[in-house]
């Protein structure tokens, strides 16, 4: 039985270690789960295996034979294939199913340079029949459903004599029935002696289909076990590790009337969420990456179109068609992608801070007032900058985030939505941001805090909502929840 072995894999990104000597093995003919919380290093490890990244150190071998994987082509030629979560990036939408399955063959065919269509279609059909599926092979890929596209990718991997196939969150876009079909295919591949690396956030399905698992945390392998010899609770505690003590200064705030009330919110990935926020309350919304948190935050801010649902603020019904409607009503958002969505890197700190509140007389900006308010805000949120005319792009991540928050503080908004506000922010700035959020609550503002950092939310939230697959599945009051419980619900446990 050939074994794929990765030994002592080390990788750092601009000095920050992502993998610190990881060992990982998969045997042919087994389904091996790769598990870990966000940022544990799973995807970095897999990108090294598929040749997308180069490891800084360590070795890879199959059946004891060392491999040099320095490009995606090299990985494929050694029989390592990946079925990516974003199926569309790997398919050519206006070509037929058959052409997509046999893409490499079509591209690399030698001889006359002519394509034998009949042969191509027959061959593709036979491969699909092997899996027991009938997708019309002449159909173009853009007319296929998501699960069909996934199947095409799997079929392509098998054509290329895959020895090891990585599935990256394959069930995320699938319905239950489609998932079951996928599991059958995985079982067939396993029968055929293919080694499978299965990455998923959903613990129940991992226990259903995987033979063994490797758990990673903070760029290291922490545990490898056979599925039959481990429980779900043990897996969760390995993923989280022992809880480290971080300080979350919680400002005491009196909780008042209901501020925000949203029911049946649907749109994009969000498949129906009910929630409410009261004055002075910090509501944490947690979930793993891809649970639909950012999408929900954007819906509540009017940044994306709603499919269904109702929202009211202080008892007044709102129709949010653009962020401007939300801002006018008193809802503001500090978005997740700071540089892309939150700040203007080419503009000064002053111009960034005044963007939402710029005062003018007869259309002319009141420049001295603007400077005054900017300096006051810089002090209030603690932005470390030489002066207010400094370009925001030159500040550190934490200070950029303070600017992104600061621009809303002088508005008379009553509900503040934060989406992963501490992402890419240093420790010092983090506690400044917690303090700012606490002060907002103390001033009777409502706060919705979206995060995938469980300890953070446990530290500052009055109430915690757990999101998974676009729904809010569980609610905890302050002090009720543990990280383990949150992880249990966030990974699809019931």
């Amino acid at each position, binding site marked *: 039985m050939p074994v794929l072995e990765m030994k002592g894999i080390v990788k750092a990104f601009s000095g920050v270690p992502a993998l610190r000597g990881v060992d990982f093995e998969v045997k042919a003919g087994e389904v091996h789960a790769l598990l870990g919380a966000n940022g544990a290093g799973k995807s970095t490890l897999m990108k090294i295996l598929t040749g997308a990244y180069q490891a800084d150190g360590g070795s890879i071998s199959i059946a004891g034979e060392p491999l040099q994987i320095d490009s995606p082509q090299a990985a494929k030629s050694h029989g390592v294939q990946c079925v990516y979560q974003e199926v569309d990036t790997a398919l050519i939408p206006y070509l037929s199913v058959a052409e997509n399955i046999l893409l490499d063959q079509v591209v690399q065919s030698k001889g006359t340079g002519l394509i034998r269509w009949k042969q191509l279609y027959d061959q593709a059909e036979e491969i699909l029949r092997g899996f027991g599926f009938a997708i019309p092979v002449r159909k173009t890929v853009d007319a296929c459903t998501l699960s069909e596209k996934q199947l095409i990718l799997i079929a392509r991997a098998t054509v290329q004599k895959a020895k090891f196939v990585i599935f990256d969150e394959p069930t995320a876009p699938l319905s239950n029935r489609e998932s079951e079909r996928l599991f059958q295919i995985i079982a067939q591949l396993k029968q055929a002696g293919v080694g499978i690396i299965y990455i998923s956030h959903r613990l129940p399905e991992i226990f259903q289909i995987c033979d063994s698992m490797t758990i990673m945390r903070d760029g290291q392998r922490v545990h490898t076990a056979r599925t039959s010899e481990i429980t779900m609770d043990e897996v969760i505690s390995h993923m989280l590790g022992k809880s480290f003590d971080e300080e979350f200064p919680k400002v005491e705030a009196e909780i008042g009337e209901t501020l925000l009330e949203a029911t049946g919110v649907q749109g994009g990935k969000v498949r129906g969420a009910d929630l409410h926020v009261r004055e002075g309350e910090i509501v944490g919304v947690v979930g793993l990456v891809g649970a639909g948190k950012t999408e929900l935050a954007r819906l509540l*801010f009017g940044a994306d179109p709603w499919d269904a649902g109702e929202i009211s603020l202080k008892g007044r019904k709102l129709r949010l068609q653009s962020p401007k409607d939300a801002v006018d009503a008193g809802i503001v*958002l500090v978005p997740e992608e700071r540089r*892309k*969505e*939150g*700040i203007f890197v*080419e503009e000064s700190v002053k*111009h960034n801070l005044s963007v939402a509140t710029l005062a*003018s007389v007869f259309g002319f900006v009141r420049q001295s007032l603007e400077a005054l308010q900017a300096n006051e805000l810089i002090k209030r949120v603690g932005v470390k900058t030489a002066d207010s005319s400094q370009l925001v792009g030159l500040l550190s991540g934490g200070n950029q985030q303070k600017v992104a928050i600061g621009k809303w503080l002088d508005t008379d908004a009553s509900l503040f939505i934060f989406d992963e506000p501490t992402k890419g922010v240093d420790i010092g700035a983090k506690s400044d941001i917690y303090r700012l959020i606490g002060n907002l609550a103390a001033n009777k503002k409502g706060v919705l805090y979206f995060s995938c950092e469980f300890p953070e939310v446990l530290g500052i939230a009055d109430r915690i909502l757990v999101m998974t697959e676009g729904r809010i599945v569980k609610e905890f009051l302050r002090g009720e929840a543990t990280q383990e419980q949150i992880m249990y619900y966030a990974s699809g446990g019931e």
Partner: protein
Amino acid sequence: MERPKISLFDLVYKYGTVAVIALVVLYFSLTNPYFFTYDNIKDILRSISIVTFVAIGVTFSLIVGGFDLSVGSTVSLTTVIVASMMVWYEQGMLITLIVPIALSLLVGLVNAFLVVKIRIPDLLATLAMLYIVNGLHMTYSKGYSIYANMPMTDGTNAPGKFQEWFLWLGQGELFSLPVPVILTFLLVAITHVYLTYTKQGRMLYMTGGNLEAARLSGIPVNRYRTLAYVLSALFAGLGGMLLAARIGTGQVSSGSSMLMDAVAAAFVGFSVFGVGKPNVFGTFVGAILIGVLLNGMTMLNLPYYAYDIIKGVVLALALAVTYYQVRRKAKA
């Protein structure tokens, strides 16, 4: 805060354009005694006045992160329309001015509709409009330039002629300065103040600086993008009217060469004094650079068909400097 190092590139980037203008002026002055005279400088300014109008329009579309290729056609359109108002229909001042202005606003609104509402990429949408507007002005004028007492298709002669007050706009002088030059100075001053000191100006820059961040800051970005396209067409339209006043006829296709001149001026303007964004003052300097080069080459008796080579080189250099700077910033 550490003091950033000043590299050679930064110096070239900041003062390069101005230095090039100074060098070119020096060179032409030394080779031709007539070049550095009041009359010739007046000529240069007069010749760039119309391009400056169009280039300021282009600057507005660049500020909101867009692009407007249809400005040249809009120039042709209003040139012909304004001429026909006087020559064909003998209209008074009010109608003569309002109709072409209204039409250019309409062009701007259609551009905005295609780009902002339908979401066609700006280059493609305004490319389509370039053809449509060009075709419209040709169809309207039946391919003929419009001049006083021109023969009409029915065998008669056109009843009207260019009005004195209108020609004064393009050919007159005030305090021994040509009127179009005064108008250009006015437009530069007004748009500069508008963009630098008013809230709307600031919001236009914010919209172009980061569209999504602007939208998520509650700025009605689509309104500002629409405004930019409308102003772009308006200034092109005014430029076209000024062109008719200057040459005294409604020349067909007269605007087609203006597009690239205006774009070159606006891109040269990016880097003037290291601003690094589209700006009206820089655009004006860019237009002067192009004007000086063309004037000097005329004096050197270079064939006119070689001018495009020089203009193209200027545009390529300006773009090279601009995009090199963008890449450097992205790396920093």
